[in-house]
């Protein structure tokens, strides 16, 4: 479904992603783990189309289509979703209004107000969110946990084919983490793929990945099953660096 080949990304003249390769099949959940500065967020933002990054080499295709030439909204309409690490505030725009616009932008057929209302109630219940939350202004004054839950709520409403979660687990307590995991697991199925970008193994206890990759210095240095995550937890990133180092991907 998603294929990344030899991706090189620069920002302000510095190369951050250095020849990354990744393939995510339909219905698969992948985890990318890496220390700070490894380029994880850059990768996430580039997949969604953030204008600040320069792709100097490589390709990204989604369902066979070249994605790098497309604007972020076009990618969203294709079914790609990014749960932001630091979601932006949009004062004066309620969560409900925003979701209504987003859902109707991404779907082929618009939902009626009644259908929208039902969908929102349903998904907010999954996320254990108070209905009043929908009237608050988007991300304004939200705690870290509320922002992350709101990102997952959006994912549930937009029903993407590929969700990239950029450190959605960071800063969350156990309860919030479990709710977020529930949201992701709700979407699990043959038509849904996800890439969980994380620093810690913790979330992988609640969302079982099909494949785990480790990212160091701008590329994926090794991959494995969920045992890799456990090994990483025990031995740390230095171990990975020693074992697999700055070598090319196998």
């Amino acid at each position: 479904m998603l294929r990344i080949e030899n991706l090189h990304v620069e920002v302000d003249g510095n190369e951050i992603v250095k020849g990354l390769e990744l393939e995510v099949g339909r219905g698969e959940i992948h985890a990318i783990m890496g220390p700070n500065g490894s380029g994880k967020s850059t990768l996430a933002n580039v997949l969604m189309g953030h204008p600040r990054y320069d792709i100097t080499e490589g390709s990204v295709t989604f369902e066979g289509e070249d994605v790098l030439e497309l604007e972020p909204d076009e990618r969203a309409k294709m079914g790609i979703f990014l749960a932001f690490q630091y979601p932006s505030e949009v004062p004066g725009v309620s969560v409900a209004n925003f979701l209504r616009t987003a859902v109707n932008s991404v779907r082929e057929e618009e939902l009626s107000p009644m259908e929208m209302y039902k969908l929102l109630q349903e998904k907010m219940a999954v996320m254990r969110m108070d209905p009043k939350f929908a009237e608050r202004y988007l991300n304004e004054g939200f705690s870290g946990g509320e922002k992350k839950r709101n990102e997952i709520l959006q994912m549930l409403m937009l029903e993407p084919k590929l969700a990239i979660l950029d450190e959605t687990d960071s800063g969350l307590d156990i309860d919030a983490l479990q709710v977020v995991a529930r949201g992701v697991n709700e979407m699990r199925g043959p038509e849904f793929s996800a890439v969980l970008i994380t620093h810690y193994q913790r979330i992988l206890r609640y969302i079982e990945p099909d494949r785990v990759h480790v990212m160091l210095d701008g590329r994926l240095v090794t991959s494995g099953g969920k045992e890799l995550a456990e090994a990483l937890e025990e031995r740390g990133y230095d171990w990975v660096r020693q074992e697999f180092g700055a070598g090319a991907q196998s």
Partner: protein
Amino acid sequence: MPEDKTIQQLGLDEYKFGFRDPEEYFFKTPRKGLDPEIVAMISKHKNEPEWMLEFRLNALEAFMERPTPTWGGDLSGLNFDDIYYYIRPMENQGRSWDDVPSDIKNTFDKLGIPQAEREILAGVGAQYESEVVYHSLKEEWENQGVVFLDMDGGLREHEDLVREYFGTIIPPDDNKFAALNSAVWSGGSFVYIPPGVHVDIPLQAYFRINAENMGQFERTLIIADEGAYVHYIEGCTAPTYTTNSLHSAVVELVAKPTARIRYSTIQNWSHNTYNLVTKRAVAYENATVEWVDGNLGSKLTMKYPAVYLMGEGARGEILSVAYAGDGQHQDAGGKVVHAAPNTSSRITSKSISKGTGRSTYRGLLKVHEGAEGSKSRVECDALLLDEKARTDTYPYIEIEEKKVTTEHEATVSKVGEDQLFYLMSRGLSEEEAMAMVVNGFIEPIAKELPLEYAIELNRLIQLEMEGSVG
């Protein structure tokens, strides 16, 4: 004689025997420019009482004496001699729908305006009334003793009441444009609400829209007697196309003790006009006046709705939204004068600039000595939509009393790249994302408008941003 009768029957006597009197002659050969003769003709044509003619002529003198102000927007392009002050030439009135610019027509399409209304707004129709709605409301108002007439009708049928207040809140020599309006005013509304009466549905001049009313020099006077309530909505949101280059209205509001007046406008004059307006209210004990002011159109708007708090416990609020696109200058804000103790006021200004657009906040907060216990809050926020846009703020604060509380806050923000990316990542195009940010920015003011106006306001701003309105 049979011959004469036949000619009369055919209605040809005028044609055959020429014009009957100088007044008729005048209206058949309209001319530009302004002088006492024109003012006298206007008054005569309307059959006004002597005192109004005198009022007009004195105002004309004041107008001639005062220089054009230079402290606000650029008025150097305004040529007073190049304007028709009352009757337009026949060719103009014969203008057809075909002559209306296509971008104006497009906007009518997008806003779903009925054809009859479009013609009025474009200055090519004669009269339009929303028959059914207007007449049934009219009956209800009459039962309550509410007076809602055009200004000419108000002067005719309620002369004493009009004379008591007309020109007292805004004296003709207040400023050059108030003087001009005082000399040549025509159209506008006269409203009187009896004591204790609450008018639930907003009064809208829109119901009586006609080409003459939507004139350059509207004059409105609203009096809310003790304990009364009224919400008046001026004009309408659709773009108003006119070849007139100057619009100079005057609005006077009187809120007697414990009365409340809310006056809402969304101004959307075409981009070739100067819109120079004087609006002022007087609020007595425990009375409230609220101005909700939207400025989207015109080449230059200079407008500072004012509330003079004259009685203890009076309250004034001014909510102002301005959008300045390429080539536009919105110079707007508000004025509040605290002249009694325990009065309160609030000014909230939201301005948006794009391209070479320039939006200026100009506000006055004045607190007289003796206005103890007064509270005031001023918040002016500006949003710049791109690199070229410009905004200025000129707050004037004159506090002559120590025991008062005042707050002032000013912010300038840009639409952030990250914000746009976030919204676009949810499927919104760049235009839709910008519109959403702007929508959120003006939300505190839009929510004070009746729903259909709030929706239209947002829609209009979106159209302006897309550049599809002329």
